[in-house]
């Protein structure tokens, strides 16, 4: 399959950048019929990530402690619930505006279980408005389990888990109505939000409630940061569930992401150093250009 005559030759020596560049040419030419050479770096990244993920999961399952840093927004959750209890007012938990197929909604249910345990411990009512009948069923289950976790199964009030509307703005108006009438002392927004984030955060702010928000959706974070007291942003959102549940598979995934991030930092710092050190306007390949080629 390989036309040996047309194949670029291997270099004589590998002592210079030019030699390495020629070596890369020769190797990728020979690999091309079997594997896309520009995608090798991607394959390595996937393999390394998978390996660390499985290793960390195994470690976590064996009971080795992998620490997870405390998130300011999480401390705020307890504070918010405590304040609601002092004031004798309920806690409002909004699980986002998407369906259960959205991963953030699933994670929101795990957080809800934790929040419901706390409110049950304090004996504070928790109101959960939902935009979707399926989400409502999941939310009911989460709150019920949370109450059970606290040893207070009687604290579960089915009427407080409400289906409002499938229409985005009608759902939003319904939540605003709850904020006006029942005056929750703490509003917790966790999950996937769209344009309504702005209106919710505004209405909640005017009601004077302490507000904690969390979403991995960047578009809506500005509204939450500007109008809420604490915000769990971006990737932090996924760490919350790992932190709360300590489930080995989640912890292992977070760990693998961390290690790859550190590797990424190291890799581009080396590249930046090589690029800065490279002679300006060099004609042939430099160490920097050879290094850059490794990334496809």
């Amino acid at each position, binding site marked *: 399959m390989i036309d040996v005559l047309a194949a670029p030759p291997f270099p004589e020596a590998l002592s210079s950048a030019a030699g390495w560049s020629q070596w890369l040419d020769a190797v990728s030419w020979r690999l091309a019929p079997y594997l*896309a050479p520009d995608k090798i770096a991607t394959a390595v990244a996937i393999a390394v990530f998978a390996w660390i993920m499985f290793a960390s999961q195994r470690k976590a399952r064996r009971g080795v402690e992998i620490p997870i840093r405390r998130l300011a927004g999480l401390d705020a959750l307890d504070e918010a619930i405590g304040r609601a209890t002092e004031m004798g007012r309920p806690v409002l938990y909004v699980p986002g505006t998407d369906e259960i197929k959205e991963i953030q909604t699933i994670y929101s249910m795990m957080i809800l279980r934790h929040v419901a345990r706390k409110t049950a411990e304090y004996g504070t009512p928790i109101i959960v408005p939902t935009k979707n009948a399926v989400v409502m069923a999941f939310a009911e289950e989460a709150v019920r389990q949370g109450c059970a976790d606290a040893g207070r199964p009687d604290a579960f009030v089915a009427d407080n888990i409400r289906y409002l509307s499938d229409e985005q703005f009608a759902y939003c108006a319904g939540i605003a109505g709850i904020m006006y009438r029942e005056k929750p002392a703490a509003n917790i927004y966790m999950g996937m939000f769209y344009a309504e984030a702005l209106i919710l955060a505004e209405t909640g702010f005017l009601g004077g409630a302490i507000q904690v928000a969390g979403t991995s959706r960047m578009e809506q974070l500005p509204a939450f940061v500007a109008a809420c007291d604490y915000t769990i942003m971006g990737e932090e959102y996924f760490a919350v569930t790992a932190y709360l549940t300590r489930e080995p598979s989640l912890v292992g995934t977070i760990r693998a992401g961390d290690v790859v991030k550190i590797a990424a930092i190291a890799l581009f710092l080396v590249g930046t150093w090589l690029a800065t050190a490279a002679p300006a306007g060099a004609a042939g390949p430099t160490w920097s250009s050879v290094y850059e080629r490794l990334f496809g």
Partner: protein
Amino acid sequence: MKREIPILLTVICGLLVVAAFFAPAPDAARGLQPSVWQAINSELLEWAKILVAVAFLLGIANVVRINLRQIQARHVDRPYKVVLLLSMFAFLVVGLAEMHERDLPNGIVRVLVPADHVTMKDGHVVAGWVQGATETGIRMRDSDGHDLPEIPHDQVALVSEPSAKMWVYFKIFAPLQATMFSLLAFYVASATFRAFRARSFESTLLLVAGAVVMLGQVKIGNDLTGGMAAPVEAFLMDNFVKAAERAIAIGGSLGVLATGLRIVLGLERSYLSE
């Protein structure tokens, strides 16, 4: 069985698509032909495409079911739900008729699809339904379903193909959707005044950066700041925002990688327990 086969399907298809990603690319210059990987990849993606479309069509059944139930239950919004269903079905019928103009019986086409008009250079107008164009001219069919003699391209001055589907799109759908989203301008205005507070160092930074971008993007903002806003905004965007967005992109890719790996390796099963 009920669980194993779906997971097996996920794993096999997933691994095949992953393999195709790394498969050699065809290269005509070197005589590398497309491999069987390209064929499998192409057909699997085609399957996914068809299934996504069919799944969406199933959604219609859901819309009908929910709204019918509300109509039956004498919901307060009952008249509106009727409008919803009627407008949906009317538009579906008109749209499907236009799409299948060539396959449908003539009587139905005559009622549901507006006639086309071809104006000739001599001012003469031919009415009928355009069936398509050949190298030499335009083929049309008359209101009885008979083929008209082909009209040569060089005699045609103007072809008018009215479409009820396009009319509904531009006169109803487009203005409604555009206006729905423009409401957000008002909501942003209200929220900025009533709730966006510089209560911490972080939110202060956010509001200042937002103001810089708003001023830097428009002429008057730049004039009012003595030409400072635009360069400051450019520096902010090209460096700070680029750094943050790149970190977010890297973090996002790790999230996709983690979930993707778990799904492709058959470890993630939550999507099956719907």
